[in-house]
């Protein structure tokens, strides 16, 4: 099984949804691993072999019930200020890139694919997370985690739209439209995240997006005041957290999120079907 969660913007909820699906599969006995080809973050985690990966993937590995390894996030970019970024490749710092000396995208993509292939070998399911928005047309040639992985490995994808700021239908449709035609067919479904209120009010809008894009709506996730690890500095969620330690508190939060999703009619079966393709 394989699936890629793409966001319509940063902070749309990709990291959490990826963790949620990892947890969902793991609870049903599927051997699952998270994957994010490339991550831009200063929050990193040290694996047991002493490799460095984004904190989001470590958290997702916890959700999957496995030990984090560097293959889950082969490329980590750590902004160092002044336009300088440290590239961590397969867990080890490899070089600094700057505007004048950018990253070798072809090489990075090939390393990402190798890491992905290794996970596919070892696990039944690989649940992937995209990075930022896949519709940054000014950066299309440099994209690895979204369009890059779809192109190289034909991974079916699901769009996550955040409704909290409004404009979610525009974001879903616009993102779909701006994904290059060759990859657009891989966009199989979408979901609406962080909704407050009665979801039936969204019905006509969802139907319209399904009709014009051909993507299936998997569901509407209610706004959950739960705390998850922060990947970047933009989101500032605090939310509830309780339990004997941080790990079990996160797992409890994921379980209640899955419960909420199931109660609200989230279509996990359709998601499974997309991942099985």
């Amino acid at each position, binding site marked *: 099984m394989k699936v890629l969660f793409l*966001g*319509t*913007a*940063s*902070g749309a909820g990709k990291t959490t949804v990826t963790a949620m699906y990892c947890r969902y599969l793991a609870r049903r006995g599927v051997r699952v691993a998270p994957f994010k080809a490339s991550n831009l973050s200063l929050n990193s985690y040290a694996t047991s072999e002493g490799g460095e990966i984004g904190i989001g993937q470590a958290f997702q590995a916890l959700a999957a019930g496995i030990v984090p390894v560097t293959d889950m996030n082969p490329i980590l970019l750590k902004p160092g200020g002044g336009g300088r970024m440290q590239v961590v490749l397969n867990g080890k710092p490899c070089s600094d890139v700057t505007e004048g000396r950018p990253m070798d995208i072809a090489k990075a993509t090939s390393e990402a694919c190798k890491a992905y292939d290794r996970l596919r070998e070892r696990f039944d399911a690989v649940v992937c997370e995209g990075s*930022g*928005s896949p*519709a*940054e*047309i*000014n*950066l299309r040639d440099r994209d690895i985690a979204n369009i890059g992985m779809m192109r190289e490995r034909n991974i079916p994808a699901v769009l996550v739209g955040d409704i*909290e*700021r*409004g*404009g979610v*239908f*525009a*974001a*879903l*449709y*616009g*993102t779909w*439209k*701006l994904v290059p035609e060759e990859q657009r067919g891989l966009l199989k479904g979408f979901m609406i995240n962080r909704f407050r*209120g009665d979801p039936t*009010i*969204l*019905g*006509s*809008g*969802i139907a*319209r997006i399904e009709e014009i894009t051909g993507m299936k709506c998997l569901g509407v996730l209610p706004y959950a005041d739960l705390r998850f690890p922060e990947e970047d500095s*933009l989101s*500032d*969620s*605090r939310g509830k957290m309780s339990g004997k330690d941080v790990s079990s508190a996160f797992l409890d939060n994921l379980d209640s999120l899955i419960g909420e999703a199931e109660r609200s009619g989230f279509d996990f079966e359709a998601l499974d079907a997309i991942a099985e393709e």
Partner: protein
Amino acid sequence: MDCIRKKVEEEVKRGTVGPDQSCPYHPSHFIGQDCTFCFCPFYPCEDEKLGKFIGSKRGKQVWDCSDCLFIHRKEVVGFVMEEIRRSGFGECGDERMAEIFFDAKERFWRRGRPVMVLGATSDAGKSVTVAAMCRIFHRRGFITAPFKSQNMSLNSKVTRTGSEIAMIQALQAQAAGLKNTDYHMNPILMKPKGDMVSQVVVEGKPLGDYDVRSYYSDFVPGPGRDAVRRNIDFLLDRYDIVVMEGAGSPAEINIYDSDIANMQAAEIADADCVLVVNAEWGGAFAYALGTVELIPEKDRGRIKGIIINNVRGDVEKMRPGAEELEKMLGIPVLGIVPHADVKLPSEDSESFRGSRTVGAGSVRVAVVKFPRISNFTDMDPLFLEDTAVVFADRPEEFEGADAIVLPGTKNTISDLEWMKENGIAAKISSMKGKIPIIGLCGGYQMMGSKLSDPNGIEGGSPSEIDGLGFFENVTRWEVYDKCVRQARGEIIATGGDVTGYEIHMGETDVREKPLFSLERFPGTVEEGSLREEEMLFGTYLHGVFDTQDFRRYFLSFVKGGRPVAESVDYQEYVDINLDKLADVFEEALDMDRMMEIVGAVR
């Protein structure tokens, strides 16, 4: 009428004066107005585009043209002065005056041009774009007004006629150089009370409470649409340019037909639109494309430009994407606007997520972050002093605070209960007498001994609860009525100035020493509560920190009486920042193209 004629005669003798800086009321309408005809030679013109009849106190109908700007336009003054002098004032009877008025109107009256700013999301930067455009047009000599048909916000302000409008429209009016802000600029204001219910304020007065469904089914199609039409017409009859602001996204296709804040308002005003997208969270091109293409064809043609806003880093990196977007949509990108580093009051709870500290000064002011916190912009002027303001919603965050503010709230009773349950009330009580504590509006009501809501007006169901007991005061909500008025006066203890405004339901029986003496016709009234030895302060006034006198007075109680930094007048400070904001936009936007879209010429 004779007395007005006499005044006009004096005005004609004196000649053109332009903006009269020597007048204590200047500028009564807008910065740059011509004050030559303080008394209008055409009064009462009875032209319904410029004024209306209102009932006087004695029951007579009188002509009210207090919102008319026509006679304060430079070109009108020049023409009218010349015409009157040509005929000789003595020869200008009613008939000749009416003729001059007719000619002047024929020559100079034009219906204003509307332009609408839409946002791809909440927080896209619509409000600041409108503020920037108001300031740019004002600087270019256009008499400009902001307009937002419907605003959901708990930050409101009081106009000179005692109406309530959203704080942000008042700020935009300031950007436009206007002094006569009124409800026309925000005819519908929704103030969320919790549980999906909002108080709906129409044309400055509370109409009632609506939930989402009743708002869309009962209010929007009838009174809502009418209010939008009436007020946009009002502004277009008086101003050169009306910069309209949309609400949320215009592409919410599930509620498109009942959305009066976006494309329907544009249609009513026959306005062309520009779409603002916030680049900060990524996905800006997708949001822009999706928004335009999801708007039904009949309305899509109104969108004449796109603004990519709030770009951090190199704006040139966005350029190739912007060009591709232009090609796909056939709509020009008017500019890629860098993140503007300005300090202006912000509006939504959206930009207020999470707890945050503002400022890095040495005096730590903890503000209770109520779930229904309102008018949190009251705290903005504190940033001019040596403070760090923390919005706190957990008891431990009050530890080590040098001062505490209990701000306003849309629901005093439920927020007081919230504060008691989570331990903040106990924490603050334990700090009483050790550091200065001030309650503003709802926070002031909480500081009393009892709060009684026998009809469930504030809390939803009848209740009576104990306050914090810092004051002996008792607050009661008897009737669904709101006190809305501006205030000015002095701090009793120091004689310093204070200004502000009241917006509240409920009345308080004050049993404490008063804090302020306010001017209220025909004399003065006492307001607020004070226990100086316990460092407890309470007032209904919002905006109390705007004057330096009161800021300094309050902060002087901070331990050790720490000296505070030199600071400027808050309104002046806001004005400087509005200019900076306008500079950023003017620099980034294709202004020729923008002026073409607006279609206003001078």
